[in-house]
């Protein structure tokens, strides 16, 4: 059972060494490079050619990965995209201005009013610190750049680095050819690009790099049994923990992998060294991140790693006892006792820990990952986010294209040449594909695995085919070819050369493969340019004459808030816009995208779905000065607040049972026209969205008040606001801001805020008003 893995792994290493004949070994390299530099002797040796080609391909891939992500900068501008990146940008700005300690101790009173948020303790600082370090370094080198540029380009930069890691990973798992293909595939894979275009300044941008690096270093550590690689892997893990909550995937996948190796009888000293040092050091390092804290020893999600850690010790102990005992029977008995005791102790420890509350149970988010239907029933706030929906087949096709077909082929090759490394990549691929099926956004995590496994398929196939294609016309080289290949397929192909049209078939298949790969490249470029490079802050559309029309309403509204409202004004909006309002509008918000307090969000949802007078009470109690709604009825922008409204109702109703979803529906149908439910027509969100919209003709040949986003004429055109007044509406009506009026003065005669002076004649009151206001 123990120590079987050695010969297999050894063959992998020798195999890979054969196919790249020692090119990476340093003594050879230095003698190779000199003729390259002199440029006179263009006749290079095969090894040198190979090295030159490999290095230049890697450089090209590195550059390509960067520039393909710049579509958004060229189409729009160097700006931060979407929602969460605005928070990251704001915190990075704070970090570079105030320094690390201020950042670590930052209590943000601008969000979650009146609760506030302890920023330092509730975020993963890896991204911000990375960007700040890059910024400080460039500043030190006297590059007078703005922090925004650094933030915008962080994700592409790390995507480029990911391609390098993918190359080394591929080389470690298979051979350098597979590594190159993996680097090229991951450089342009839409599944990864979707989260790493320029401006997409989010945790995932650096986290995928950290994830792949940790995995690569761990596999390297397992392959070599080297302490250095294991420690490097622990530091990679630390970086990952500091950057993204997805580190939970690593801390569960690696123990699972170790467990599989144990079960399949691949336990080795290398594994023992790699896992123990990585786990212990990684755990200790991870505890330095305040947001993670002692979760590694206290939370249910991390217990698998600890269990496997103890299991490994038991294994090691048994191995040692077996070594000492020569009697097999005695050992069998000892084994039985030890295993039973170990399992019993583990179970009791877990049971006691859970019962006493020391070990926290799994969180809802974790459950929703394992069970796709969990969130829909229990946590509406997770289910309401579009990127948390289960993935449709079309988006798999969209994000992976041919990789979807190459993935099973790659699995086949991996199983054919099973080693510790291929087992890891297979497990990574299979688990992440499952998670990608559960949530759209986790396609991102699956992408590196899919690219690597597909790269193995591509590389192995093309290698076989080229061998076949070259076999006949260069019969003399057959010996060399056969020797250089470790693949059974190729040797088989060269063995039965008698098959007719074999060479032509191989050439045809090669052409087909190149056709597919070029299709992949065009698809990726098209997807990047069309789908993933839009900042979603600025909306672009085609005008009537084919010209580009830009709707910059979001920034118009945020900038208006920033410049023309009191600095301490509180803005209530649905949580989607919270980060943007604080970052661009610089005003306090009630709720934002860090959805840590469900009740608070439900309160806002309740206010939005109540009648105006009830909502006014809620807003007064939250000190709200302005209410911001997003409305797409004029432009036909469909992701506006009216379309999100049912989620507000659901989330509000989840906490406050006075809000009932059926009140807003007519026969289970959601409508805004004349047939809409009366509560719908009079709730705050409806009123704020459609206030004075009934006077506007949006489309030629349609009645006034025609909502272009939903394609209906609105049901309530005569909207009167009693407690709020329109403060600002952007030029395309996308954002509407209302001011919450102060409570009415008790005095019935005087105008607002002017004390009632009964002895003053009415004529003079005007002057008094002027006095008080002027």
């Amino acid at each position, binding site marked *: 059972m123990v120590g079987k893995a050695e010969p297999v792994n050894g063959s992998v290493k020798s195999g890979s060494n054969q196919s790249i004949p020692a090119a990476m070994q*340093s*003594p050879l*390299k*230095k003698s190779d*490079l000199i003729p390259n*530099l002199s440029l006179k002797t263009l006749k290079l040796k095969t090894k040198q050619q190979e090295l030159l080609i490999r290095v230049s391909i890697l450089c090209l891939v590195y550059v390509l990965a960067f520039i393909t992500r710049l579509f958004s900068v060229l189409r*729009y*501008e160097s*700006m931060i995209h979407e929602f969460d990146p605005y928070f990251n940008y704001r915190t990075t700005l704070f970090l570079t201005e105030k320094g690390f300690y201020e950042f670590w101790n930052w209590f943000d009173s601008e969000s979650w009013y009146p609760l506030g948020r302890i920023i330092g303790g509730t975020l993963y600082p890896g991204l911000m610190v990375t960007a700040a370090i890059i910024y400080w370094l460039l500043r030190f*080198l*006297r*590059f*007078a750049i703005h922090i925004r540029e650094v933030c915008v380009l962080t994700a592409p930069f790390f995507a480029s680095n990911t391609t390098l890691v993918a190359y080394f990973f591929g080389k470690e798992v298979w051979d350098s050819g597979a590594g190159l293909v993996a680097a090229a595939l991951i450089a342009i894979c839409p599944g990864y690009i979707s989260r790493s275009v320029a401006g997409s300044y989010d945790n995932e941008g650096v986290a995928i790099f950290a994830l792949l690096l940790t995995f690569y270093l761990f596999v390297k550590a397992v392959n070599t049994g080297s302490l250095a690689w294991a420690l490097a892997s622990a530091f990679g893990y630390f970086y990952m923990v500091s950057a993204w909550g997805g580190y939970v995937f690593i801390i569960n996948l690696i123990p699972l992998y170790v467990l599989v190796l144990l079960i399949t009888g691949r336990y080795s000293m290398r594994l023992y060294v790699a896992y123990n040092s990585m786990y212990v050091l990684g755990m200790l390092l991870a505890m330095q991140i305040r947001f993670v804290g002692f979760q590694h020893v206290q939370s249910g999600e991390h217990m698998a790693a600890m269990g496997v850690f103890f299991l490994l010790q038991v294994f090691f102990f048994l191995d040692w006892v077996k070594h000492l005992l020569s009697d097999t029977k005695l050992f069998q008995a000892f084994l039985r006792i030890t295993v039973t005791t170990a399992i019993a102790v583990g179970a009791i420890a877990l049971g006691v820990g859970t019962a006493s509350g020391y070990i926290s149970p799994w969180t809802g988010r974790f459950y929703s990952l394992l069970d796709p239907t969990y969130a829909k029933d229990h946590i509406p706030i997770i289910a309401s986010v579009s990127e948390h929906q289960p993935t449709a087949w079309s988006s798999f096709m969209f994000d992976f294209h041919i990789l979807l077909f190459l993935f099973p082929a790659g699995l086949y090759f991996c199983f054919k040449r099973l080693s510790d490394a291929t087992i890891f990549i297979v497990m990574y691929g299979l688990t992440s594909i499952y998670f990608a099926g559960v949530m759209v956004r986790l396609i991102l995590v699956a992408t590196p695995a899919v690219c690597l496994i597909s790269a193995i398929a591509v590389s192995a196939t093309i290698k076989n085919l080229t061998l076949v294609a070259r076999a006949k016309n260069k019969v003399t080289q057959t010996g060399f070819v056969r020797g250089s290949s470790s693949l059974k397929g190729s040797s088989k192909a060269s063995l039965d050369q008698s098959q007719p049209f074999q060479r032509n078939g191989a050439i045809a298949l090669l052409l087909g493969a190149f056709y597919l790969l070029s299709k992949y490249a065009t698809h990726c470029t098209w997807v990047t340019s069309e789908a993933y490079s839009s900042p979603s*802050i*600025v909306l672009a559309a085609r005008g009537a004459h084919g010209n580009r029309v*830009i709707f*910059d309403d979001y*920034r*118009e509204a*945020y*900038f*208006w808030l*920033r*410049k*023309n409202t009191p600095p301490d004004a509180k803005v209530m909006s649905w949580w989607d816009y919270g980060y943007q309002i604080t970052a*661009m509008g610089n005003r306090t918000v009630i709720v934002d995208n860090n959805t840590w307090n469900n009740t608070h969000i439900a309160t806002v949802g309740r206010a939005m779905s109540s009648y105006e007078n009830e909502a006014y009470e809620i807003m007064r109690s939250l000190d709200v000065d302005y209410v911001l709604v997003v409305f797409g009825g004029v432009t036909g922008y469909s992701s506006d607040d009216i379309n999100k409204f049912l989620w507000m109702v659901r989330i509000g109703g989840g906490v406050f049972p006075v809000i009932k979803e059926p009140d807003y529906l007519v026969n289970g149908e959601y409508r805004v026209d004349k047939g809409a439910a009366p509560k719908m027509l009079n709730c705050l969100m409806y009123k704020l969205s459609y206030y*004075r*919209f009934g*006077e*506007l003709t949006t489309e030629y040949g349609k009645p006034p008040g025609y909502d272009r986003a939903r394609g209906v004429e609105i049901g309530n055109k005569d909207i009167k606001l009693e407690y709020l*007044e*329109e*403060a*600002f*509406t*952007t*030029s395309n*009506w996308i954002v509407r801001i209302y*001011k919450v009026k102060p409570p009415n003065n008790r005095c019935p005669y005087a105008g607002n805020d002017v004390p009632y002076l009964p002895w003053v004649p009415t004529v003079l009151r005007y002057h008094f008003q*002027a006095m008080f*206001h*002027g």
Partner: protein
Amino acid sequence: MEAMLRIRAALLLSALALLSLLVRSYSQEIQIANAERRIDLTSHIVKVFLTLKVENVGTSPASEILLAFPPSQVDHLALVKAAATVGKRKKKSYLSLDVIPTELPDAPNGTKYFSISLLNPLSTGETATLEVLYILTHSLEPFPAEISQSESQLVYYRDSALILSPYHIKKQTTFFKTPSSKLESFTRVEPTNHAGAELKYGPYENHPPYSFLPIILHFENNNPFAIVEELVREVEISHWGNLQITESYRLAHAGARHKGMFSRVEYQSRPSISGVSSFKHLLARLPPRVHSVYYRDEIGNISTSHLRTDPWKSELEIEPRYPLFGGWKATFVIGYGLPLEDFLFESPDGRRYLNFSFGCPLVETVVNKLTVKVALPEGAKDPSAVIPFPVEQHLEAKYSYLDIVGRTVVVLEKNNVVPEHNSPFQVYYNFNPIFMLAEPLMLTSVFFLLFIACLAYLHVDLSLRK
């Protein structure tokens, strides 16, 4: 009846002013035969054109003429210019004269003076015609101070019907030009004549020195009250051929404050009534051959701008993100590059100088505080600035791309700047062209060292094993 009362009050006031005055001998040497004042109230920048026919009735020649301003006006005074008229009728030409602020020991009621130095002293019995232009900012007070979206903006303008002067004025007339004929009210001092958009006070005859007769005009003015609260213009000289200008603006609407709600539907559907006093466009006149123009603010690019260029001028039409109503503010940055050969010259003594325009390129705006920063190239020495009007100056250091010792920055500061200040100024400095090569050399040496390091790494075996 009312008018009579007012005149009486005015007479009383002027009598008081007379009494409070120590009649100095030398002011009696000069008297003003005819004064004509034209006050342009069409925009928020008040321009006053004053034509004085001065005669010397004293015994000794006079070399300077004094202009007097009440203290309330002096605070808002942006510029005073004077010119002497030479020649008659068709051969008329103007010679500009020096105007400097002066103090008199016994100025009544805090009156402030500017003295115009004549080119040739005015000898006894001679007359001269002087043209004076002075510009007042922040002198129109909106009343009512707050208006709603559908109202138009009314403002007060306060002045005197009689020209404040230390000299005896024989005959004077004042014309006010308002933006529209809608004049809510005005103080009557007979003879007063209102026709269309013009209001005429006078002619008044034989008023002693320091006569003052306060009047108030209440009229409609819907012109954009665009005020730049602060403008920082940075001019960066690169001897590689480019002049980079970055201007950061803090813009505000200084008119009547916006009250109540802002309705987009009314603003869009009834542009002639709704929000008449608001503005949404601004025009910037940039030098010709401008390139790589950008227009952005703290949160990104602003897409609403248009650049029109022709060989003689460039016009940049910018729209802030939202229309500006009274009291609303906006900030933005405009940047552009200019060819260096249009602005940088070599003086005969071997020094280099930059010749650039001082004021704000926005049309019809007042800048409350203007800072011009001229960043000289690294290695420039002995900077000195020549500006046609008094400004505060100091030096700073700035670090830009690949700077080691930092660039010298000449900082010029001036308050209350009007478009008439858009006159050229010069910054002289010494520069050795060898410094131009410093940064390219630095970069090449870095790359050279990098390659050397790579070579060394490949040749040195660092492994412990043999």
